[in-house]
């Protein structure tokens, strides 16, 4: 009885402190409840009433672009490779708490629900299994015993991941690069940009801060000119 009283009192106290501290505060709480409720209701309505067949029919196009049929395994292997690398890296360098894992799990479920089909259920299960194995392996084994060596290997892995991606896509009479598309292309582009951009940025930054006036001028010019025009303009020029 005392316990329930205590819980209720704590609950009210929390409410008062966090939501209804002052008149203005209470007003804001009510306003945001109404707003969030309205948006949520509208969003649910959209989810239910929208025509999802467009996604269903064009599933493959969205994910792989014009990759010829039979090449899906390349896409999957790229996904698995990057996933294991990410999970191992997280195990070595980071720490996951339950909240993060839950968010990732939920979002991946939604993605697979939208893009997965029944016949690829095994592949999806393999993906989850692989992520789990990689993360636990690195956290409970590598981190304890082989920390330094794994770090070096991982850095190597991250640097060479792009040639490996391209190798996977091209090996054995692979599809020509103009056929790569969809989400696969997004992943490749993003990885290349991030990984190759890092050393470039490092050099430029060091150059700009250097004491050699020529190098400083060259780096500054490059940075300012490239930053001056929008990305679409550079795409146009290319």
């Amino acid at each position, binding site marked *: 009885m005392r316990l329930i009283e205590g819980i209720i009192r704590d609950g009210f106290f929390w409410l008062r402190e966090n939501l209804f501290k002052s008149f203005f505060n209470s007003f804001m709480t009510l306003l945001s409840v109404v707003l969030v409720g309205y948006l949520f209701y509208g969003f649910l309505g959209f989810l239910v009433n929208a025509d999802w067949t467009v996604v269903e*029919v*064009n599933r*493959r*196009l969205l994910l792989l*672009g*014009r*990759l*010829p*049929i039979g090449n899906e395994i390349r896409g999957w292997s790229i996904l698995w490779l990057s996933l294991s690398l990410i999970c191992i890296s997280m195990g070595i360098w980071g720490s996951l708490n339950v909240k993060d894992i839950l968010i990732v799990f939920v979002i991946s479920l939604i993605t697979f629900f939208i893009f997965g089909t029944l016949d690829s259920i095994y592949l999806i299960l393999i993906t989850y299994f692989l992520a789990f194995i990689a993360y636990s392996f690195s956290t409970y084994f590598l981190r304890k015993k082989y920390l330094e060596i794994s770090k070096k290997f991982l850095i*190597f892995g991250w*640097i*060479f991941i*792009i*040639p490996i991606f*391209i*190798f996977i896509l*091209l090996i054995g009479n692979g599809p*020509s*690069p*103009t*056929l790569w598309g969809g989400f696969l292309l997004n992943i490749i582009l993003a990885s290349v940009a991030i990984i190759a951009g890092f050393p470039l940025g490092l050099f430029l930054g060091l150059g700009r801060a250097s004491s050699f006036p020529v190098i400083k001028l060259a780096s500054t010019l490059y940075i300012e000119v490239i930053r001056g025009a929008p990305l679409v303009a550079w795409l146009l020029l290319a």
Partner: protein
Amino acid sequence: MYKKTLLICLSLILSYSFLIGCQAEEETASSSTSGSTLDVVLERGTLKCGVNDNLTGFGVVKPDGSFEGFDIDYCKAIAAAILGDSGKVEYVPLTASARFTALGSGEVDVLIRNTTWTASRDRELAQDFTATTFYDGQGMMVYADSGYKTIEDMSGATVCVLQGTTTELNLDDRFTKSGIPYTPLTFETNDPLQAAFEEKRCDGWTTDKSGLASKRAEFPASAGGPDALVVLAETISKEPLGPLTRDNDSEFYDVVQWVVFGMMQAEESGITSSNVSSMAANPKDPGMARLLGVGFDGGEVQDFQFGIPKDFMQKVISQVGNYGEVYDRHLVPLGLTREGSFNALWTDGGLIYAPPFR
């Protein structure tokens, strides 16, 4: 310490350059704009065709990634003529605003993307137009309940148009010439344009009449369906559509042009994909024999020196078809009938006329 970093850097540079080198080998062959494109295509083994991926009837990409349409079939025909196999095509979808730079830079060998032949394009863009495959005209599509009958009725209207097309310029010419005030709304791609038109953001949609027919045919029922729309009778401009090649590329230009003419001649002579082999074995007259690259009555085979196998038209017709077959396959379902239009054979009063194969 130095050695280690050096080793890493070297291996990195090597692996990257290896990959880039692999790509570059493929690309230098196609991106060299000097030298005959015909040689480039023969060496590469595929034809790179710039196409549309969003115009029903002319060029669309299907969910499995393959392409289909009137222009697509001409890509296949050229590939069949040069390489012997209509499947050896690499389709490069291009937007209206990017198509000319793609051809000029060597990204594609030929551009077959419902492109209008104009004087400024012929000269300013340094590209050449081959035979016209479709005589089109610019039209205006409006809602049936708006009550518009002519362009003059559309004073003060808002018109949706695609950017970077002759349509944009023709629209302006037509309206300002008659002093009719209007507001153009220029989009880059068709999808936001269609969304705006469905919501009646603009009163009219202008593009080639063939494009209007295809867009009208697939107009969603939720916005009224095809019956809610009407294409005005007036043809705002002449829009002859055909394949393009780069300037100073006569060998390839001639091949493309005569493949198209060959398909027109085939229809005129009555050769179809089903009877081409029997016609080749037994040509009815010397003209047919020359077209199909065989000897007539045991005589010599005429070699036009195109640089491709003499029987190229046989491959084209058997694998793709003649002009009429291609037209019926893709454009008749849109409601674009040939009778009485410019796209009928010259013998039926139209403009489809092939110079002689002699």
